[in-house]
């Protein structure tokens, strides 16, 4: 039956710490056959706890012991073995039947072996559990409590070893000496060697626990100190009420310094003589060149429209030429401009503007009379060439 339910028991054992193995999960592992689970319940392999299933303690402990993964260190086994040994010894003494005496002697040998084995197992378990607790227990307070409890276990094991040794060496020493049985002598010797070994191991374990507890204590103190310093810092009292300034003055660690840079000049000889340098210089130039180009602000491309040539023609009237022509004529300026044949069509208003411009630009070469003329509603001063007027 146990071999048939191997998969289920394996799963339940691996999840023993969560203690939350649902009946549905068990059903899946037993091909959905309820009677197979029921059979395990009937034989006391499993027990029900609400909608959860649990493995019976007796099987759980058996597996833990065999697989050497037990977390609970049970010192009571050794106590029981010792009292059982004492009883068996007294039966042996009182028994007259040689055959039965021999049976008791075999039992005594078995118990002695068991004491050695259980003590050794306890010591190994203790060491493993201490390591596990220190490294894996996330809760700080629980970790400390667990370690203290494991230290008490260590003391228990130590006192049991002492008890066993006293029993073998002092209380019942004459018996073990008197009984003529080579195998028994050998077993007693092996048990004593084993107990002695365990005792030495316990001394190491004690050191380990003290070390771990000290580490926890140290961490605790550091944490407290940080909180206190933070409080004083927030109260702006850190420098006044602690010796932080003098402590920091003594600390010369480079860690406090800003990150240094070491600008080094290149060796001139190296630059002159090494061919590789040439390549390096080329690379540097290429890099610097690229950087320079990158540094420039690059404008957008010029729109095509801007690049198209647009030709616009404008006729420009050269007033100088008009004035030159006017100097050759005898008419007054307004009449001259009015009748002047320009290179393009010129309106009356524009001709008035040219008149004004010529008068203002060549004022000194003209003679402005007091006479006024009128043309198309525009009154104008009669203006002549200076020379002509002089002639007149």
């Amino acid at each position, binding site marked *: 039956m146990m071999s048939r339910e191997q998969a289920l028991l394996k799963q339940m054992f691996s999840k023993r710490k969560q203690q939350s193995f649902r009946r549905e999960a068990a059903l899946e592992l037993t091909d959905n056959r309820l009677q197979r689970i029921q059979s395990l319940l009937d034989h006391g392999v499993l027990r029900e706890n609400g909608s959860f299933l649990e493995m019976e303690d007796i099987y759980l402990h058996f597996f833990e012991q065999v697989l050497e993964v037990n977390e609970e260190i049970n010192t009571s086994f050794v106590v029981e073995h010792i009292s059982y040994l004492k009883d068996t010894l007294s039966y042996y003494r009182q028994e007259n039947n040689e055959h039965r005496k021999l049976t008791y002697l075999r039992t005594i040998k078995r118990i002695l072996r068991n004491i050695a084995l259980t003590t050794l197992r306890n010591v190994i378990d203790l060491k493993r559990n201490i390591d596990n607790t220190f490294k894996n227990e*996330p809760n700080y307070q629980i970790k400390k409590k667990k370690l203290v409890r494991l230290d008490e276990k260590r003391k228990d094991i130590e006192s049991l070893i002492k008890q066993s040794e006293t029993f073998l060496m002092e209380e019942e020493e004459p018996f073990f000496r008197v009984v003529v049985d080579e195998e028994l002598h050998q077993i007693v010797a092996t048990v004593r060697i084993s107990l002695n070994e365990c005792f030495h191991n316990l001394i190491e374990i004690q050191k380990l626990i003290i070390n771990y507890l000290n580490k926890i204590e140290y961490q605790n103190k550091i944490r407290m*100190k940080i909180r206190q310093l933070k409080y004083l810092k927030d109260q702006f009292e850190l420098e006044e009420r602690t010796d932080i300034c003098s402590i920091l003055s003594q600390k*010369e660690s*480079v860690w406090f310094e800003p*990150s240094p840079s070491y600008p080094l000049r290149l060796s001139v000889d190296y630059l002159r003589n090494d061919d590789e340098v040439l390549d390096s210089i080329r690379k540097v130039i290429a890099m610097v060149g690229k950087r320079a180009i990158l540094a420039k602000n690059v404008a957008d491309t010029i729109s095509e429209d801007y690049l198209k040539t647009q030709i616009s023609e404008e006729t420009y009237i050269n007033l100088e030429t008009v004035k030159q022509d006017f100097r050759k004529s005898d008419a007054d300026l307004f009449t001259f401009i009015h009748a002047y044949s320009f290179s393009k069509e010129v309106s009356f208003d524009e001709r008035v503007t040219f008149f004004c411009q010529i008068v203002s630009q060549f004022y000194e070469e003209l003679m402005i009379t007091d006479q006024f003329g009128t043309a198309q509603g525009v009154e104008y001063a009669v203006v002549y060439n200076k020379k002509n007027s002089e002639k007149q």
Partner: protein
Amino acid sequence: MIKQTADIFEILSKGGFISSDSTSPVIRQLYTLIDENLSELSDFFGAINFVLESGNEYFYFSRKENKVDLERKLEIATRWIDVLDFIKTYDAAFSAGFRFQPADIFVRVGSDLELKEKLNGLKKLTGKEKHEEIIDKIVNDMKRDGFIELENEITSTYKVVAAFSYLEELVACINIPEDIQNEIPE
């Protein structure tokens, strides 16, 4: 002359640390090398005015004519007190050998009011506003100074290395008189 002297100098002269439990095999190798040739290297670095100091499972540089003034030291120390206060509140076991994920700190901040308040207190110090950014900044600062190392890139798990003890030792040697300690609320 030890071949890796330049590598050692490169790390230590920038104020870095070489820890025995580094995640990088190269750094671990450098640690062993210094450990085995301590006097030779001390003499060598001593000649260029650097003192090779050994802490608890880590090495660092100091120098007698340190050009840093007390004000800068105080500024750095107080900044780290704030950071230490935050990370020790996150986990009291935050020390050499401890492993953590920044995402986990972020989750814890969401459910732990004290932690959240302490993180908010770091806004000014880090110049960041968002919780995630402040945590990133703290983690990066610790990484830059060599107190933590990225152990697993995929899960983004960091390992606190031996050099972290330097901060703890710095805190431990500051003395608060007993009567003042009694005034400080628990």
